[in-house]
Structure formats: structure tokens, C-alpha cells
């Protein structure tokens, strides 16, 4: 099996995630970008697991953990976004600079 095609896919996915994280104004889309980055990492984990001489499913288990944690993180993140939107009628990340000097 050739790994390159999967790794290229993961790298492209991760770069898209970084791009979205840095340039998007909408908080929901920023969170989505983070999910993209996590998905890229999961692909990497599974691919490298499959390439081992004696596969033992550790990569898959790790990927499952990442999915679980990501689900929790998105749950909390969207809840916060919802509260901010209710208070300010906006989800623009540039306006959320209260935690500064």
C-alpha cells in the first residue's frame, strides 16, 4: 500500500484548517476549521498504524479518543458561541477582544 496519497490528503486538510483558523471572521467557521485540523491528524494516526509491520490497533484507538475529545470540545465551544451571540447579536471574532490588557 502506498501511504503518500493519504498523507497528502491529511496535509491538505490540515493546511485548509490552519487557513480557516487564521482568516475566518465567523466564530462557527473557526471552530469548524479546528475540526478539519483534528480530522487531518486522525487520518495520519490511522495511516501510520496501518503501515506498521505488526498492526495492533493503537492508532485507531487514539483516533477514537481524539474524536471523543473533539466532540466534547465542539459541544462546549458552540455553547459559548451561542451565549455570546445572544448577548451581542454577533459572532464576529474581531469584536471579541475583552480579555486584553
Amino acid at each position: 500500500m502506498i501511504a503518500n496519497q493519504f498523507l497528502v490528503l491529511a496535509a491538505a486538510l490540515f493546511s485548509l484548517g490552519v487557513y480557516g483558523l487564521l482568516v475566518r471572521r465567523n466564530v462557527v467557521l473557526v471552530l469548524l476549521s479546528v475540526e478539519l485540523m483534528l480530522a487531518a491528524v486522525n487520518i495520519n494516526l490511522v495511516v501510520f498504524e496501518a503501515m506498521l509491520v505488526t498492526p495492533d490497533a493503537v492508532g485507531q484507538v487514539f483516533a477514537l479518543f481524539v474524536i471523543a475529545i473533539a466532540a466534547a470540545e465542539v459541544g462546549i465551544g458552540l455553547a459559548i458561541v451561542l451565549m455570546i451571540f445572544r448577548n451581542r447579536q454577533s459572532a464576529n471574532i474581531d469584536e471579541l477582544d475583552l480579555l486584553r490588557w
Partner: protein
Amino acid sequence: MDLLVLAAAEVPRAGDGGFWAETAGIMLVSPIVAFLAIIAAGKRLKYQGAEIAIGALALNLVWATVLFVQNMTEGVLHEVTFVIGNVGSGLSFELGWVVDGLSIMMYFLVSLVGLLVFIYAVGYMHGDRRVTWFFAAFSLFAGAMFILVGAPNLIQLIIGWEGVGLASYLLIGFYWEDHENVNAGNKAFMTNKVADIGLILGAILVGVSLGSFSFSDIDVASTAQDPALAGVAVVGGLLLFLGAMGKSAQFPFHIWLPDAMAGPTPVSALMHAATMVTAGIYLMARMFPFYQELAFDIRPWMVAIGAITLFAMGLLALVADDIKKVLAYSTVSQLGYMMTAVAAGGYTAGVFHLFTHAFFKALLFLGAGSVIHAVHSNNMSDMGGLRKFMPTTYTTFVIGSLALAGILPLAGFWSKDEILATLDYEGYTAVMWIAILGAFVTAFYMARAVALTFHGTYKGHGHPHESPRSMTVPLVALAVPSVLVGFLNIPGVQWPGIANFTDWLAVRVVAMGDHHPEGVDLFLAGAGLVAALAGIALGWVIFSPDRDTQRHRDRVEIPLLYPLLRRTYYIDDAALGIVRGTKGPLARTVDWVNTYVIDGIVNGVAAFSLLLGRFVYGGLDQRGIDGFFNGLSAVTDAAGGGVRRLQTGRVQQYAVSFIIGALVLVIVFIVSR
């Protein structure tokens, strides 16, 4: 401990006293502890602190009695010293206690007489002002005397000496509500201070020349004719003698003692018998080898002073109306006897007279106190006929008077005879006749005092009555030794089992060169006795009450002599004149020095300190230290202000820096592979 070797070689019967000598220091401490305890808690006790004072002295009496008996039977010699610190140039400051014949005798005397006087004072001071304070000061008085007689060196002796002086000052001026009493206290203190200069200078001179203040070292060096000590012997001896003259009221320093009557009578009794005035004689006895071997050149002068004191002061007792003044002048006269004897080379004679005199003089003072307690007056013109009202006081007072006059076989006879024998042996024949004449005078004034006080009719007010038991019991207790102690030292008589007085005094000191007569010199004893009997007879003839009228005369006004004696030879006036004459100029000089020299120095120091303070505050503190810390905080503040601008609050900026950092790490990893 050279001394032990020497003394043991000389006197084979000296023991070390064992436990009792090892712990004899308790006697030096307990009255001082009592003093503090009475001040702290005396007021709350039933007898207002008297029980503490009596308890302390009773404890001391136990120790003193055991040591006394040990010394009589086997001899005791022990010395304990603790080095407190170094004074420099090889001299050290030591405290401790000496247990030897002389000090044991003094321990015994002070604790026995002191205890009886304390008990007496409970009755005498009953209902008086400041009883607690009285017993506190009284304990201090006794304690200072114990420190003095226990001293192994001159330094501790001076400590005790000054302590005694302080306590006597407090007690003489005890009734300080009357200005006169305060003056008497001041007079005693200042007269003593003048003499104390001699003591301190003498102690420094002797101690520094020899390199040691210890009496053992001084004694041994004196016996060995140490050249360092011999060089200062005359000057040092004179200075120490000056100190002894002050404390022991030798002419012309006697002026404080009659005025010291201002204190309560128990104070006078203790002061005249056991403590205070005996200190000077004790110092002379302690330093006896020094005077015997090195400073013998000044001895004739010392004998002369003693002779003047014993005779001239005895005459003054003849004209006094105050019964305590009679006894006071009598004490001065008897101290003259002791000083004459010790100075002439009669160590045993002088100390033995000190020993016997303590008992009957304490007895006489307590008897006088009992009388004063009954009639509320010191003057014999307010007394008379008290024989019927106060039989116990009368009997004991007469015993004391006979003992003082030197009637066979009472204590005073034997000690006075010993003094006469010593003077005869040492070749001071003229002084011996003066002493015999003095014995006549002594008997004369005591006969007058007894006749005026106890015989004839009562001339005072109210109804006198016998004193309470706490006062009469000490009188009786003192009358017994007044009769008996003379037998301890009968020339030529050796009691079985106990050594002679001479021997137990001689335990410590090696080359005493002291003469003790082999047998009673019948001529001298007879002369002394005849003089005493003649004195009593003449006194009785002149002053006894008329058989019919029961009145008596209290004075015989001999022209010239009587006014001279009444004015006490104008010595007090002369002393006052000297003080008045020098006081003004001296005060002005001191004032000038104070204003211009001392104030100038003080102001200069103050101005310099001010400048220094200003510099330290303005220059050093404000600019230097504060500047440093202010600068430090300013830098920190600026740095913080710069760095906090990074905290923008924009999540995406943080993400950018986070990703840049991650990339840098990746590059570093790749490059460093």
C-alpha cells in the same frame, strides 16, 4: 592554695570543715535573698516580713554554730573562690568565702547577735511605720556584713563594706520625716565616704603592686617579705587604715557615730555590736600580717589614734544626757581599745575584745531601747527609778555595765586585761596607763548611766512598764554570754577538749608574731580592776540619789572641761567649718567647669551628631538607598508596560504566534538532525 600548705604545716590541727565549710556561702546569700523576699512579699505576712529576716539569720546561725564548734575543737580552714572575670594585667575579680578562725568568729557573732536583735526588733518596732521596709533594710545590713567578713579578697570586702554603709544610711535615716534624722544619715554616709577613699586607694595600691587582691596572697607575701609589697607597705597601710578609721569611728572620724543614734534602737545595737563599726577592726585583723611584717613603721601612729580615741571619747560619754549617746561614745572608746590593741601587735587581744564587746554592747543598747520604749524619751533626765518598774531590764543592764566596766569575772575584764598585757609586752607603757585610766572613765560613766536611769525617783511622764517578752528574752540571752565568754581566753588556762581563743584565731595566719600571755599578770589585772572599781565608786558617790530626797545631780560642771566636753571638743564645729568653708568655692568651681567645659563637650558632641544625622538621612538614605529602590521599581514598571501590549485579546493573533512558534520548532528540528 599556698596558704593551706603553710598553715597546715604550722598548725597541724586545722581541718577543712567538710560540708559546712563547703556550703558556708549560704550565709553570705541568705540575708540578701531575705532582703529581696521581704520587699517582694513581706507586707502580706503576719509579722510584715520579720519572720523572713529572722528565718534567714537562724539558718545562718546553724551554719555558724556548727563551724564555731568545729573550729573550737579541731580548727577549720577552707577557702572557696569563683573567678567572675579578669580585670586586666593579670588581676582577676573573684568572689567567694573564707572559713577560718577570724571569719568563723565573725559569722557566729553577726548571726547570734543579729538574730537576737531581730527578735527584739519585732517587739520594739511593733506598730511602727514601715516595719516591712525596716526588716528588709535590716536584712541587707546583716547580709552586707556577712559578705564583708566572708570576703577572700579586698574587692569583695569593699563590696560588703559599701553595702554596710548603704544599709546603715538607710537605717539611720529611717524616720526620714524628721529632717534631723536625714542629716544624721547623710553625716554618717559622707564621713564614711571620705574614709572609704582611703580604703579603695589602699586596696588598689596593694592589689596592683602584688598582682592579687586575695588576703591569702597578701598574708603569704607579707610573711615572705615580698619586695613588691614592701615598697608600698607604708602608703598602702596608711590608706587602708584611713578606711578602717572611718568605719570604726576612730578619732577624728568618730563624729558620725553619736549622730547615728537617730535610727531605731535595734539598728544602733546591731551597728555598735556586730556589724558596721567592727568592720574596720576586722580589716586591720585580716591584714594583720601585712601590718606586722611590712607596714610596722606606721604602727605607733595607729596606736596613738587608738589611744586618743579610747580616752577622749570616753570622757564625752560622761557629759551626755541622751542614754544612747552615752553608749555611743562608749562604743567609740571601746573601738579605740580594739584599734590600739591590734595596732600594737595584739591580734588576739583586739579581736577578743571585739568578740566580748559585741555581746555586752548589744545587751546595753537593747536595754536602753527597752527603757526608751517604756518612757518614750532618750534623755536620762526623763528617767530615774526604773529599777522598780523594769526588773529584767535593770538586772541585765547592770550585768552589761559591769561587763563593759571590766569587773572580774565578767567578759570585759578578760578582754581588757588581755589588751593591757599586750600593750605592756609590746612596750607601749604610756599607752597602757592611758588604757587603765580609760577603764576608770568607762566604769565612771556606766555608773552614772545606771544611777541616773534606774535609781532615785521617776522624773518622766506616764507609767513605765516592763517590755514585752520578745524584748526581754533577747536581753537575758545576751546577758549569759556577757558573763561567760571571757572564760574562753583566760591566760594560762586550757579547757579540756577545746582550743584556746588564740589558737582558733591563729589557724589561718602563719607568722602571727602575736603575744599571748602565759598566765594572768596579777599587777596588770589588779590595776585594771582597781581602776574599774574606783570608777564605779566615784560615779556612784557623785551621781547616786540622795537617801532622803531621792533626787540626784546629773552633772558636775568643772570649768573649761565641762563646756569643752559638751561641745565635743569642737570637732563637729571644726568639721562643719571645713565643709562650709570649702563648699562655696568648690561649688562655684564645679559649676563653672560644668557650664563651660562639660556642657561644651556635650553640646559639641550633640552638634556633631546632628550633622552626622543630617548627612545620613539626606545623602545616604534619601538619595542613595531610596534612589536605588525607586530606580529598580521604575525599570520594572516600564518593562511590564511594554510587555503587556502583547496581550491583545484577539484569539487569531495568538494563533498566528502559536503557529509561527511551531514552525520555528519544526525548522530547528529539521536543521539539527
